[in-house]
């Protein structure tokens, strides 16, 4: 089997991740921050240590500014709904996942003005187009670091400069890039960063987070969910302390432990090496697919401007048939359709049919790619 659906979720997970998850449930099973006994403290330490690793990983100095959530979707909702108020203006790109688009459409119904910057058909965004949309009431710009449909990288640092000039905030969805591109929030000018644990960070599903830059005043962010935190229990009001203000309810201990192990595993492997490996695989995929005249590949076709996510269609054939036959006949697992990103498919011109998406990961080999391309050739020629 050749798993080329890493953009949906990474698989297999490093054995260290599985071990960390079973270990924590076996040996540190207390409720973190609720009781004072050793099992509760052991659990709290694992969570704190993971917070610290994440803060270092993304380049913020205070670990308490790492807010754990269920996934990127939850983190994006927390940031958007916590910050935007009726009358505010928000800008996004036309390449966004529904994790961004749907909460924005929902907020639009509540009196928030939404502008969507049109990206080029290869998925690229001209930062100046954001500048043209910024107005005096612009509160926030939200965008993906890279598209989950075509892998195109968006110019985060350039947009950050424009956004800050206007006195607005920048929220970046790094669901697709965390773990494969070295990242420093401070250097990139990211104010709020939403990540998910189960993709290239190598963690399990059900854990993600919002990282809030050191300079952001958290008084401007309302919690999405209120409830028990184990702190200030004498009060019936939600506490203002970080991270508790945004973390009500018992934490996903096993998920956090697994994510921590994933981060350590990535550090050992080296993100730079992973990044280089994926560029090689991406180049092979693009070159291999380009040899078939009936295949149309979307995106920049340039591994220097994209992550290793390659989308294609085949003239006169349904993507569902291609995906199904790749799986059934060759054990090549892809994802076909709209990839939860209708706006992105409209932008690249593949709506409503969608594309076949191939996304290799850190465990994918060059031999896997050779075999996958041969399989694709056979499927489209028969």
């Amino acid at each position, binding site marked *: 089997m050749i798993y080329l659906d890493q953009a949906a979720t990474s698989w297999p997970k490093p054995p260290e991740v599985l071990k960390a998850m079973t270990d924590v449930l076996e040996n540190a099973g207390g409720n*973190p*921050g*609720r*009781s*004072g*006994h050793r099992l*509760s*403290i052991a659990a*709290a*330490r694992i*969570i*704190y240590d993971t*917070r610290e690793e994440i803060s270092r990983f993304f380049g913020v100095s205070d*670990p*308490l500014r790492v807010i754990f959530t269920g996934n990127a979707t939850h983190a994006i909702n927390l940031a958007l709904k916590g910050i935007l108020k009726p009358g505010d203006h928000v800008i996004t790109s036309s390449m966004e996942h529904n994790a961004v688009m749907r909460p924005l459409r929902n907020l639009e119904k509540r009196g928030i003005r939404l502008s969507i910057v049109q990206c080029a058909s290869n998925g690229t965004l001209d930062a100046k187009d954001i500048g043209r949309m910024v107005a005096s009431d612009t509160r926030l710009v939200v965008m993906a670091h890279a598209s989950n449909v075509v892998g195109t990288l968006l110019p985060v640092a350039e947009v950050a400069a424009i956004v800050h000039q206007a006195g607005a905030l920048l929220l970046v969805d790094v669901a697709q890039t965390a773990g494969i591109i070295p990242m420093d929030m401070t250097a990139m000018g990211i104010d709020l960063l939403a990540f998910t644990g189960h993709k290239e960070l190598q963690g399990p599903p059900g854990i993600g987070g919002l990282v809030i830059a050191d300079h952001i005043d958290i008084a401007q962010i309302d919690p999405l969910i209120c409830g028990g*935190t*184990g*702190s*200030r*229990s*004498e009060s019936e009001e939600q*506490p203002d*302390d*970080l*991270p*508790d203000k945004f973390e009500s309810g018992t934490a996903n201990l096993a998920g956090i432990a697994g994510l921590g192990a994933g981060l350590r595993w990535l550090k050992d492997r080296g993100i730079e090496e992973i990044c280089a490996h994926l560029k090689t695989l991406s180049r092979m995929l693009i070159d291999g697919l380009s040899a078939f005249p009936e295949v149309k590949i979307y995106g920049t076709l340039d591994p220097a401007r994209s992550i290793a996510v390659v989308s294609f269609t085949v003239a006169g054939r349904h993507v569902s048939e291609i995906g199904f036959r790749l799986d059934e006949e060759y054990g090549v697992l892809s994802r076909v359709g709209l990839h939860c990103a209708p706006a992105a498919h409209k932008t690249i011109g593949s709506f409503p049919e969608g594309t076949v998406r191939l996304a290799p990961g850190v465990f994918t080999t060059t031999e896997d790619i050779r075999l996958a391309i041969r399989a694709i050739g056979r499927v489209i020629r028969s």
Partner: protein
Amino acid sequence: MTLHGVILFHTTSSVLRAEKRLIKEGFATRLVPTPRQFSSDCGIALRFDWNDHERITSMLGEEKVEFDAIHFLDANPV
């Protein structure tokens, strides 16, 4: 007999953050359940050797480590 003090915090995360800084400075500390007489809160607090009281207080202040309160733990071994 060692006399102890205890530092109270509002959140578990801030206790653990402070604990790491104190350990890094070489102070002997221990996490203990928050003594009920000091707080209605559940959770954990940071116990330390009362002899280090002044040095710890000034270090917490200098490094802007947020905490709730510092108390002497008289005849109240935990």
